[in-house]
């Protein structure tokens, strides 16, 4: 308890230091390691006893509606549950392979360093705050639910029964309550009787987590879940059994959500810049081709007409010549004939 309080106070001090600093790390090509003084929560599954006190505290702190079954009814744990619009956090019970005692795991928003929901939101309703929390602003939300599609941990829930004002609902790491001074740490952390949850600076918690693994290597899987998953999260997990056996996916990879889409987004301005030039070029070529074809056609027609004309002229000239010749011939013939006739007539006259 003392350590948790201490870390919480340290965290508050850290948040104070963070104010006034510009988060230049978030911009540019550099790898974003999260806000330097960002807070986080460390969950240790080997300490969790599945009492659901965190669920009750969360419900109370966030003024969520009362559940159908009370929080001390542990039969709820018989079925695996997920977060919903009425429960920002739930605890599930898992039976690890090879027997042994059941293991409990608490689910809530993991508060990614580079959140998929914030990257996916087309109206910037989600925000990664310098204190490590990821919060949501219902006043701009359109209700498209792309954040729910994008979230690799299936955390955001939606008020499906609200006809006109549905909100996306998820854990805020008690950002509003902590920044208003109402709480020193998230409601769930304060309610945990077993110190299965610790709130503090993420960098400190990572050290604590690794120290625990080092101190009790037989007790823990040598992995801090959330240190690098999906680019890192502000909710860190320790477990004594493989994480896949307590409902956590081990195939998410370390690539953050924004990195998954940055390539596609980068192409957008290039399409806008290159396409008009390319299409304009194709248009100019096809237009020129059409014009050239048109001109060639005209030229060909002109040439054909001209050739035709020349042929005609030649033929006409030939015909004229022929006619001329014929005429001359016939005149000559006539003259000859006339002369002959005249000669014959003269002969006859002489004879007579």
């Amino acid at each position: 308890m003392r350590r948790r309080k201490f870390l919480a106070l340290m965290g508050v001090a850290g948040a104070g230091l963070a104010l006034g600093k510009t988060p230049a790390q978030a911009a540019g090509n550099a790898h974003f390691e999260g806000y330097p003084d960002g807070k986080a929560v460390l969950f240790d599954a080997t300490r969790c006893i599945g009492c659901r006190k965190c669920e009750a505290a969360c419900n109370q702190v966030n003024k969520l509606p009362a559940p159908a079954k009370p929080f001390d009814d542990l039969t709820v744990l018989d079925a695996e549950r997920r977060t919903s619009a009425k429960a920002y956090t739930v605890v599930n019970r898992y039976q690890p392979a090879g027997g042994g005692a059941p293991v409990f795991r608490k689910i809530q928003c993991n508060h990614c360093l580079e959140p998929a929901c914030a990257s996916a939101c087309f109206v910037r309703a989600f925000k990664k705050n310098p204190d490590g929390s990821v919060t949501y602003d219902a006043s701009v939300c359109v209700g498209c639910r792309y954040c729910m599609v994008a979230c690799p941990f299936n955390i955001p829930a939606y008020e499906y029964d609200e006809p006109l004002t549905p909100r996306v609902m998820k854990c805020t790491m008690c950002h509003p309550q902590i920044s208003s001074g109402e709480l020193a740490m998230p409601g769930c952390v304060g309610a945990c009787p077993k110190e299965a949850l610790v709130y503090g600076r993420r960098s400190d918690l990572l050290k604590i987590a690794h120290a625990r693994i080092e101190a009790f290597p037989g007790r823990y899987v040598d992995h801090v879940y959330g240190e690098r998953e999906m680019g890192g999260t502000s909710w860190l997990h320790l477990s004594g059994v493989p994480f896949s056996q307590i409902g956590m996916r081990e195939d998410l990879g370390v690539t953050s959500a924004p990195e998954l889409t940055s390539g596609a987004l980068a192409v957008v301005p290039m399409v806008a810049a290159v396409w008009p030039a390319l299409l304009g070029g194709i248009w100019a070529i096809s237009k020129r081709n059409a014009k050239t074809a048109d001109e060639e056609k005209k030229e060909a027609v002109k040439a054909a007409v001209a050739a035709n004309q020349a042929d005609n002229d030649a033929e006409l000239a030939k015909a004229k010549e022929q006619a001329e010749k014929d005429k001359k011939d016939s005149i000559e013939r006539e003259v000859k004939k006339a002369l002959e006739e005249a000669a014959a007539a003269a002969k006859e006259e002489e004879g007579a």
Partner: protein
Amino acid sequence: MTSEAKKSLFTPFNVFAGVVLLVGAYLTVMRFTGGLAAVTNLDDNNPWGIWIGFDLLCGVALAAGGFTTSAAVYIFGMKKYHSAVRPAILTAFLGYALVVFALHYDVGRPWRLPYPIFLQPGTTSLLYEVGLCVFLYLTVLFIEYSVAALEWLGLKKLRGLVHKLTLLLTVFGVVLSTLHQSSLGALYLIAPSKLHPLWYSTYLPIQFFVSAIAVGLSMVIFEGTLSHKPFHHKMDATYLAEHDGVILGFARGASIVLASYLAIKLIALGADNNWKYLISGWGAWYLVEVLGFVALPCLLYAIGSRERNIRLIKWTSGLTVFGVVLNRFNVSLVAFNWQLPSAQRYFPSWGEIGVSVFVVVVGILVFRFIVTRMPIFHEHPDYKDAH
């Protein structure tokens, strides 16, 4: 005269459309009084159903005939397909308008749809990219379509002014279509852990874009085939004379584009080394999609255009359209959340299907209203050879 008009109003289609409109009105009231839960099977694990998978993804893909046809005619200079432009533009305009209409049912607060564009743009989101492009392209399509409406209204001066913008609008339309058709695929890039590896690929944007061109060309054939009988009397000699040429040319184009799409699919499979998944139930389903609805229509289109078999081409266009719808369903619904236990998987409710059918019927009715009045399948007598 009046009795004849009355009689012709009660055709089987009109009765069906009337019933669908009534059901649609009922579902609209349910949606906006009881929320999505009252009408849909959506839940926290399955936030997107057929209103996204069909109405948005398929609606936008099937409306790709607008930009492909206008690009072919106005940019690539294939003037012989000119009579296909107006029906394609009208189909595209109505398609996009209905996409936006359908989104009003799906999103929580539809009156905030302008927020991402005008109030607080989330430029890191592929959905922002989709939204902005669809908004701009719907505007472009409206202007392109308005030429026909202005001819019908007899507003010659305005019509001439808008007509001068044709080339500019076409280029703008191709840019916007390239962007949002591909971005619809890119929407899923952010969720590699949820989409089955056979469908997830970093090439998703290119796959969506290229398949949209194939289905755009196919829709021109398919829609022309469907329109032929009911609107034959509205088609002029030019449209009818060019019709077979359009079908043959578009079939050849679609065959080439489908071959390219097939290559991209195979490259994606190889690039991520996903061959091992082929020997599984998911692999069989993937092969049904890729062999039955990409490779087969590619081949049939090639045969059809080579042998000038119009009948075969028309059937193939239906096959291609179905194939792209299947692909969009696989990406958004079937292979999405494939790792969830079957009890947590999504299947659409009758109300969701009802709204989707309602949206399609509204589209057909508006299409019919326009083509029976405005110069779509025929040229306006005042503007013959004016293009």
